[in-house]
């Protein structure tokens, strides 16, 4: 009885918040409703006795994925009016497709039936009351499904490669340090101790002195402000000048359309 009430509460809130994800005017609110939906899904998992899945859902989706969603959505300058321009035009089609799908699914589920001989089909994991489902999941995941597990790891690796290859840029203004070199430095190398006469100021001694190599020493060669960077910058300037003289060279690799 109690479980049923809790189930319906979780389910109702889940459906409502999922609807609000789509309907909310403000995308930040949408993401927050999405998080609420995740929570309720986790609650449903708990009711089903899958406590490991419930916690993993919260940790992975709410704790990491949705944070990044929120991160991005908050930083985007979304123009709502522009986003909603097409809604009026495409709403009927979308509603029609959704409606057809809904009717089909209702038809499918009202006559739901499992295979007649389901008892004869071999299933991998016999359920056992003495094992927690965390242990059971681990047993299956790392033995029977090790191939799939490792392939999923490759999928994630590819996603990581993609994120790097599509977004990482060498910024010409980036200042990067060689951390080991920076740690190795001692004050005697990088600081110059001056005896300043009382009341005379430091202007006479050339103002505040800073050893001119102090940045170069710890910087990654080629990053902003280093010798190598200056040399490259000078070379690039020469090249730019050449392009100005012969504009026919143009940009490479562009389509002509």
């Amino acid at each position: 009885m109690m479980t049923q009430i809790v189930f319906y509460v979780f389910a109702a809130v889940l459906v409502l918040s999922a609807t609000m994800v789509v309907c909310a005017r403000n995308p930040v609110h949408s993401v927050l409703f999405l998080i609420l939906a995740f929570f309720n899904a986790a609650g449903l998992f708990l009711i089903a006795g899958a406590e490991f899945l419930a916690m993993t859902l919260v940790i992975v989706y709410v704790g990491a994925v949705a944070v990044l969603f929120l991160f991005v959505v908050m930083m985007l300058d979304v123009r709502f009016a522009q986003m909603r321009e097409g809604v009026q035009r495409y709403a009927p089609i979308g509603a029609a497709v959704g409606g057809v799908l809904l009717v089909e699914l209702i038809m499918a589920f009202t006559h739901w039936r499992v295979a007649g001989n389901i008892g004869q089909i071999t299933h991998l994991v016999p359920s056992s009351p003495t094992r927690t489902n965390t242990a059971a999941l681990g047993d299956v995941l790392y033995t029977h499904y090790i191939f799939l597990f490792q392939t999923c790891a490759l999928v994630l690796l590819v996603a990581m490669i993609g994120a790097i290859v599509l977004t990482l840029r060498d910024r010409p203004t980036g200042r990067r340090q060689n951390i080991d070199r920076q740690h190795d430095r001692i004050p005697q190398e990088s600081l110059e101790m001056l005896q300043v006469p009382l009341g005379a100021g430091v202007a006479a001694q050339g103002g505040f002195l800073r050893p001119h190599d102090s940045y170069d020493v710890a910087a990654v060669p080629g990053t902003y402000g280093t010798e190598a960077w200056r040399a490259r910058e000078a070379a690039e300037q020469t090249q730019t000048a050449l392009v100005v003289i012969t504009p026919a060279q143009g940009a490479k690799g562009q389509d002509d359309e």
Partner: protein
Amino acid sequence: MADFFFHTVIGQILLIVLESLAVLVPLLLGVAYLTLAERKVMAAMQLRKGPNVNGPFGVLQAFADAIKMLTKETVIPSGANRMLFLFAPFLTFSLAMVAWAVIPTGNGLAIANINVGVLYLLAISSLGVYGILIAGWASNSKYAFLGGLRSAAQMVSYEVSIGLVIVSVLLAVGSLNLNDIVLAQRHVWFCLPMFPMFIVFFISALAETNRAPFDLPEGESELVAGFFVEYSALAFGLFFLGEYANMFLMSGMVSILFLGGWLPPLGIAPFTWIPGPLWLIAKILFCLFVFIWVRATFPRYRYDQLMRLGWKVFLPFSLAWMVLSAGFLMVTGLLPGGAG
């Protein structure tokens, strides 16, 4: 009496409420005095006196602060998202409270002794970022927003190494239940065989609670207080309480995962006279002292250094250690069976 509490619905609910109060009241009192302790300890380290006006040695300072905070006016900036603006501090505060449901203060002595306790803790601590992110965004202020973003990136980064550290502890225990984790340390606390992980976890806990030297989200010198720059009065107080309660929580996690929870250092006579909960409290207080000590000692990290430490040092290191300890347990046959 026992019948009432264990066999009627109202009694059961009442029992839960009483249990919660038994944890929350000392916790809140502890939080109030932690703020005072921090000021006193830091003052001592910096050869000052610290608060000493309200009551003897300033012991009433915490209450003076509370009254001040409660009686001030709540200012909501124009253009702020009111609902979220007020929701954020409540979220931060209540998350820091609900996590205590699973912390065992003695053998089997937790409000909820659940099978996946450590995952529950990880989940709750990973939610902490929302309070800050929402506060930063809803304030409609650049400084607050920058603070919120910094915090989000920082906490998500350090959660990864926290997770790996926890996994290497779990490998040695063979259960996700916090009670089992403590009991597995009967012979030796995990802080000895896993000393590097203990250090990694503690430093990550500093980053996770936005404490110095990782307090960039509130960096007062460049962000004038970061994500809660627009908060005042009660809402500010809730943030404040939430932050310190989080410190308690992290100290509790450190104590349970590495310092043997409620167990005495040695299972012999003079130590076993002291009841378990007091041991746990003592360990938590020790961790809190280190939190404050670190704050008084180290300068703030630069943002790129913070990220480098999290991703390029802690993550590979804890991953390598996890693989190493798994291999070690496998080879020596110490790996606990997956019964838990």
